[in-house]
């Protein structure tokens, strides 16, 4: 019974309720929303956001932040696109190249954060402008259109009737869930985000954990880049400006605490779904595009305010119990 109560009061649950309410409203306005086709479509177009949100979740739990992910994914799509066009059209190799490029870029972030102890937001601001600069200098903003056919075919596959990209999202979610719950590294991520000094004293290797956190973020970004290329069938170096804020938004909507130490995979899934549903629903409800950003922003502000107010109220109740 107590467990049931804590679940109901958790941040994730309140976000989940908001998700259900919004879905209901949209369905009442336009029943197409609940069709299998629409749901799969909606999921597919938010897979990239979802995969990267998993990496960002780990970063945010550790008490950090990574604003270079938009630049990273753009650069990796360019690398993978060029690899596919000029070197090899092997699909497995393209994932290896994407993942490896991500690990290198994320690793650089991780090294700077852990070794030089520069605040993560500053490090990633710096690497963001470096990666973006190199990528745009190299491509001049030109698109890559001649992606090989076998890769495009791969992107349109639907095993068990579900677009292949959605499997990657679930893969990333399960991987992140497993890492966070069952590995020493994962517990260390929560520990350093909750209280850095205590974690250090218990004996966690804080530097190594931080390095790994950003490397994992890079790796997932790399995979997301290949998945994105398989959806879009072309590479646009400018497709991801401002994307980092969407990724961060999805994670915090899902109940993760930007101060670190708190957050869950299932909450982040709810956050990503919330973003997806709002975006999709606004289109289905024929709301003019100009209002969409306004409504998304409003929902973020209301959701986080609501959450804080609720937490404060429950804290007050605790205090009263203590006094009595």
């Amino acid at each position, binding site marked *: 019974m107590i467990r049931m109560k804590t679940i109901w009061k958790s941040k994730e649950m309140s976000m989940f309720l908001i998700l259900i309410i919004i879905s209901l409203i949209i369905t009442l306005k336009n029943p197409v929303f609940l069709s299998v086709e629409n749901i799969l479509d909606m999921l597919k177009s938010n897979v990239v956001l979802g995969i990267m949100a998993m990496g960002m979740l780990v970063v945010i739990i550790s008490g950090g932040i990574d604003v270079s992910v938009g630049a990273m994914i753009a650069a990796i799509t360019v690398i993978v696109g060029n690899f596919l066009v000029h070197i090899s059209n092997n699909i497995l190799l393209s994932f290896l190249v994407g993942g490896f490029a991500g690990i290198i870029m994320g690793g650089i972030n991780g090294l*700077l954060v852990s070794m030089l102890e*520069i605040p993560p937001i500053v*490090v990633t*601001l710096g690497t963001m*402008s470096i990666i973006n600069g190199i990528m745009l200098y190299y491509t001049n903003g030109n698109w890559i259109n001649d992606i090989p056919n076998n890769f495009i075919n791969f992107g349109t596959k639907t095993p068990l009737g579900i677009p292949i990209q959605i499997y990657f999202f679930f893969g990333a979610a399960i991987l992140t869930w497993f890492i966070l719950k069952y590995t020493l590294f994962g517990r260390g991520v929560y520990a350093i985000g909750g209280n850095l000094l205590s974690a250090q004293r218990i004996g966690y290797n804080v530097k190594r954990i931080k390095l790994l956190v950003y490397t994992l973020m890079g790796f997932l970004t790399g995979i997301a880049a290949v998945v994105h290329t398989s959806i879009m069938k072309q590479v646009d170096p400018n497709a991801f400006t401002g994307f980092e804020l969407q990724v*961060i*938004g999805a994670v915090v909507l899902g109940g993760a605490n930007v101060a670190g130490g708190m957050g869950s995979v299932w909450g982040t899934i709810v956050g990503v779904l919330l973003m997806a549903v709002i975006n999709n629903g606004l289109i289905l409800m024929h709301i003019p595009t100009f209002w969409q*950003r*306004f409504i998304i922003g409003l929902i973020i502000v209301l959701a986080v305010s609501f959450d804080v107010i609720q937490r404060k109220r429950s804290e007050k109740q605790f205090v009263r119990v203590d006094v009595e």
Partner: protein
Amino acid sequence: MKKRSKELTLFIIFVCIFIILSILSPDRFLSIDNFQSMASQLPEFGIIAIGMMVVILTGGIDLSITSIAALSGISGAYFMTKSLELGISEPVSILVGVISIFVVAVICGLINGGIVAYIGVAPMLVTLGTMAVFEGISLNVTKGGAISGFPDAYSWFGNGSLMGIPVPMLLFIVVAIIGAIILERTPWGVSVYMLGNNPLATMYSGINIKKVQLRVYIFSALMAGISALIMTSRYNSAKVDYGSSYLLQSVAAVVLGGTDIAGGYGKVIGTVIAVAIIQCISSGFNLLGINRYLTDITMGVILLLVLAINFFSQRRHSFKLVSR
């Protein structure tokens, strides 16, 4: 031996860059034309950076600062052109425009500050949401286009000059001096630093931290308003994406200027020097015909380099203390 201040290190870097650029391109970089063009480009960015700095001093961040600039600029433009259409004389219309810029900016600041201070939501989340909200409103007003057709006299704010000094530069100097005085000489300024150092201790020392926070966000919004005034006047139009590139750049400038991203330390003069460095590099590189993407790369490298130097010099300093 006294430790060299961050600001002095920064100033030396500025002088070095200035000398290098002067040697590389003596006839163009050291020309009056170049100085005048730098002096008219720098202020809009510098004023936003000062607004961002005050928020960062309290340990917060204002991701909505550039969308406040866009929204207030657009409202100013909207009301100014509307009152012209109604047949109201030019000077009065300009006054209406300028007043509505600042009224809208203050309202935006009140919303941010109110939610941060009185509800207690993390600044990054609030401003992430309000950024989208303000942008959404701007998009609705302009429908994605630009508002133009201002009276000729309005362009004085952005293009005019007094005694050979461009008006924007004068505005920037006034803002910097007033900002420095407010921060370093008034009780409110001192409480801003205290709040950034230790909010709990500040509260127990009898300072109304909610009020301090609220005013911080109003201050940053006002800075966004001044910047909007300069931008709309300089481009003779108002558009959603004016100034949007200054968002992360201004955070970078503030940090480069020696402000602690966690709050509590930072000086206006540091931010001013950092802004000047960034302006020199981008103008200088432009004159030298260097690709503008290489400028981005250089900025990122300089940001990380300065922080690395700070880290190592601090460590050497603390080693000395220990060995003594």
